[in-house]
């Protein structure tokens, strides 16, 4: 698993790639907590995300709650069909806005 953060327009752009397992999801959670404390508007690039366990979903939920508490924006984009199914089974697709591409995610307005 790899996670890194950049900037695009007024958004923080976080790229999560590889496999988020129960073994490394704590690292992801700590990273996303820092992002959530600092940022108001966050886009997450999932194009290279191969796998995510429920503890990885938990890390995303922590970030979402931090962003929601300040009425910010959190959007995911390029989520693979397999991972999208995990989101749907978990009910996470109801509160994580998921976009097909970076362009649509950043262009969806404030």
């Amino acid at each position, binding site marked *: 698993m790899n996670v890194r953060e950049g900037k695009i327009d007024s958004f923080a752009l976080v790229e999560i790639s590889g*496999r988020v*397992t*129960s*073994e490394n999801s704590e690292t992801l959670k700590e990273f996303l907590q820092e992002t959530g404390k600092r940022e108001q508007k966050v886009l997450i690039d999932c194009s290279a995300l191969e*796998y995510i*366990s*429920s*503890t990885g*979903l*938990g890390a995303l*939920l922590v970030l*979402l*709650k931090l962003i*929601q508490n300040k009425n910010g924006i959190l959007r995911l984009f390029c989520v693979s069909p*397999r991972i999208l199914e*995990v989101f749907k*089974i*978990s*009910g996470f697709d*109801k*509160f994580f806005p998921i976009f097909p591409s970076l362009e649509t995610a950043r262009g969806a307005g404030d």
Partner: protein
Amino acid sequence: MKKDEGVELKLPNSLAALTELHAVAGEFCRQWAIHPDIAFKVDLVLDELFTNIVRYGYDDNGFHEIVVRFKGRHDRIRISIEDDARHFNPLLAPEVDIDAPASERRIGGLGIHLVRNLMDQVRYQRRPVGNRLIVIKRLGKEEKQI
């Protein structure tokens, strides 16, 4: 790994063992020409079940062995996970409310919710010492690579 004999894997109660578990599960799925979509689900289910045992199953910090057995048939795969942990039937745990808003959602229970929904059958057996969980995934025509 001989295809017909199944695979038995003995792992320590450590999350670091997930790497080996994933590797062996991947190899088993390749041997049985399991469709990558199904292999993904098997991988995820094993992660959830193994992690639950390691994190919540034991009252001590000592070494314990967790035995995972894979068996394939033309129409299904069957995986059992056996531990010597505290008796616990995850199938009796309360269902996750997937309609709750994000603010009320917790991650506890989500793992077993995924297991139930990604597999076709999940069975629990209480052993004299420990637990056995059996998961079965049926293989449709479209789910086996030709």
